[in-house]
């Protein structure tokens, strides 16, 4: 039998509070990622890099300025060298300016993106470039 002040009442309240806190934490990170432009720039650069790869011929080398993304990544504590990566197995470019989360987009051209690196020549986020080469798919 449940009585007033029983543990189940307290458990209900605790569950409510935990759900409430989780919900607002998720909302907080969601809104923050939008408000500092992380979501937008990740989406933009993943699609632009893929567009370049899709239109490229094997042997081409590219340098793309990704300063807007690097500035946000530095603010979020993400190392510049980790903001862009390429998954040649699944043909995906992954762009991330936040810790533990990123945005991916697939390229339909069956090529390998190799020797890719993101570097800031000045050591700061300004003039950050994503450098990569496109070559024939390794069989």
């Amino acid at each position, binding site marked *: 039998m449940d009585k007033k002040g029983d543990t189940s009442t307290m458990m209900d309240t605790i569950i409510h509070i935990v*759900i409430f806190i989780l919900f607002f934490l998720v*909302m907080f990170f969601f809104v923050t990622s939008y408000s500092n432009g992380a979501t937008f720039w990740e*989406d933009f650069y993943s*699609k632009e890099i893929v567009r370049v790869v899709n*239109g490229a011929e094997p042997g081409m080398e590219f340098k793309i300025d990704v300063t807007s993304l690097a500035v946000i990544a530095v603010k979020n504590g993400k190392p510049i060298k980790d903001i862009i990566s390429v998954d040649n197995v699944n043909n995906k470019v992954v762009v991330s300016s936040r810790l533990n989360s990123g945005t991916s987009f*697939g390229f*339909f051209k*069956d090529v390998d993106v190799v020797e890719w690196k993101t570097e800031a020549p000045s050591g700061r986020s300004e003039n950050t470039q994503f450098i990569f080469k496109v070559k024939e798919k390794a069989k």
Partner: protein
Amino acid sequence: MMYRKGVLGTGLLYFVYFLMMALILAGIYGGLIAFFGKGYDSRLGESRLLLKETRECFEREKFDLSSLDKPVFFDKCKFSSKVIEDGNHFIYVNNSKGAELSIGVSDYKVRCGLDARLKNREYPLCDDYKSDNYYILVGSSQNSRRVAA
């Protein structure tokens, strides 16, 4: 088992609680989209590039459509089957003899003509090309995905 008065009401309040959360979530999401926009739409750009690559490949390889199979097409045109067949792409080719090749989501042949495609990012934006020998229709509805990184 014993049930006290009000237990049902307490249970129903959970529904109200989650409904309120959903409303807040929808409100904040709607506000963010209204303020920052839906982001960069690359569907048409990707379709045009896919059409260009397909067209150039057909002109270069002089395929016989009646005997062309998918692996040969992917290999010769240097397309990734994983991406083209991921449920967000479509390539359709036919010739004057009635032979055809369809890769990806075949329903896109219909969805390419729907007005909803302009507003709904889940629908494809398409591009086509017609020559004396071939008719090519391609479409893409690929959107970026959130992943752990």
